[in-house]
């Protein structure tokens, strides 16, 4: 080790801690402080408000559809890209990550231009009496767009690092495709898969911009929890807004706790493969 230079490190650590307290911890703590400012009874009444409960239910339904679909997509994409060689693989990976670089507002506008009243498919949908925009299907579709890369992004590098030897051995021993996947590949990636699912859930629950464009903001009908927070805040019902926001914050904190826990578990996954995989975040 280098000779001790106590002053500079100590100053830098203090600076980093203070900045983080002001910049990250204060906004987080403020949510709970404001939600509970008028006491627990008011807090409980705000949480149990029928419109807030409806928003929670709608948000849960959207997440319960979007997360499993994107787990299946992520696994399919990772299996195709990581275990096989074909032209255009790089392009496919870029395509998978496009939702990370596109603003959710743009995603919402894209969907509106496709399925909206004046959209490309608008006349067809109206003829067949199918409502996609300003209804549950639209909210689910935008959430699918925004959260599409999460599972693939976590599982793909791991599956690439692990190579194909184990799977090939299993095939040689006569295992079927499904057996290879469920008995060889899946156990190897389980922590990364869970990790991706957690991030995907947090994002699906918290999506605001994209959903805001396609939901139509119908009170008690198409208001997801983040939209409901906005509605309460703009109604100047600050305590109600922060009470609703506190439930979303709790979900975020649980997701972070699970993530931190899974990261230690993933260490075992990773040590089985190469060390030093770049862990660039692309989650938004």
């Amino acid at each position: 080790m280098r000779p001790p230079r106590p002053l500079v490190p100590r100053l830098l650590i203090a600076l980093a801690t203070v900045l983080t307290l002001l910049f990250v911890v204060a906004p987080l703590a403020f949510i709970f402080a404001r939600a509970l400012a008028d006491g627990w009874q008011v807090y409980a009444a705000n949480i149990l408000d029928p419109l807030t409960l409806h928003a929670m239910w709608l948000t849960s339904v959207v997440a319960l559809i979007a997360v499993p679909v994107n787990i299946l997509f992520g696994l399919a994409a990772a299996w195709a890209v990581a275990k096989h060689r074909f032209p255009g693989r790089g392009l496919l990976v870029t395509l998978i990550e496009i939702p990370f670089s596109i603003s959710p507002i743009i995603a919402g506008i894209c969907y509106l231009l496709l399925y909206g009243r004046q959209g490309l498919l608008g006349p067809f949908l109206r003829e067949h009496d199918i409502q996609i925009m300003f209804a549950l299907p639209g909210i689910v579709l935008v959430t699918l767009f925004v959260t599409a890369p999460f599972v693939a992004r976590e599982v793909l590098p791991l599956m690439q690092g692990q190579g194909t030897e184990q799977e090939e051995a299993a095939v040689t021993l006569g295992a079927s495709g499904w057996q290879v996947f469920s008995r060889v590949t899946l156990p190897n990636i389980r922590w990364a898969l869970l990790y991706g699912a957690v991030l995907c859930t947090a994002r699906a629950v918290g999506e605001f911009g994209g959903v805001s464009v396609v939901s139509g903001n119908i009170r008690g009908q198409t208001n997801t929890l983040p939209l409901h927070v906005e509605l309460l805040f703009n109604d100047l019902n600050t305590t109600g807004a922060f009470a609703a926001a506190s439930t979303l914050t709790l979900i975020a904190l649980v997701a972070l706790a699970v993530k931190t826990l899974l990261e230690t578990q993933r260490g075992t996954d990773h040590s089985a493969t190469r060390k030093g995989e770049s862990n660039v975040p692309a989650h938004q």
Partner: protein
Amino acid sequence: MTVAAPIRAKRVLPGFTLSLGTTLLYLTLIILIPVIALVLKGAEIGPDNFMRIVTSPRALAAFRVTLTAAAIATAINAVYGLLMAWVLVRYDFPGKRLLDALMDIPFALPTAVAGISLTALFSSSGWFGPLLDALGLQVVYTLAGIAIAMAFTSIPFVVRTVQPVLEDLDPALEQAAETLGARPWTIFVRVVFPAILPAWLAGCTTAFARSLGEFGAVVFIAGNLPMKTEIASLLAYIRLEEYDYNGAAVIALALLGFALVLLLASNLLQFWAARYREAM
């Protein structure tokens, strides 16, 4: 399938057609077709109308506000993110794991929640507002507020891009520099910084791109005054509410263009970073 498997297995594992087919179908339905709908709308509008809408004073003002605030936010995170990555990789101290975990909060916290919290925090009834008022500084409903909201949501990009590179850095180089009598600051500037530069730039590029598209965190604190504190994505949103689909599509296309250029830049930088790391 089981009959064909042993022969094909020599080259390819099973399930290729199924998995690739599923992936392509899903990407086409969920990502490609909607984006194509936007591009088609742009084509329908035509280049003349496109230019007219994109260069209208209100749109130009919105782009200027968005770009300026995103640049300030990125500058903040370029410094703060680098400091965090450095402290988290190089030093051991109590609470380090917690500090590391805190860096992910902006990713996990819904942006609308971050938005209302920052707005109330910096308002005169919040924790920071009164102090700033006393200093004569106004954050809420100003460009500074927009920049702070953007900075909050993009903190993790710089930290998490620089961190692994800093971890992988060969200590021998720094030790060699030290043996040659270089001072710590010189070592940082001449040895460490060049090595993490590509990753740092890539992180900053991603943070910038994220800031350009940020909506939820910004709309509450911005005040949304046309020509002054109105961001581009909000203007697109307002055009939709006015049923001006052309106006919305044009601004969305311009933002999409920015995003794709930045995605390309970030990919090139990360490619460069990877080559740099291999060469070390």
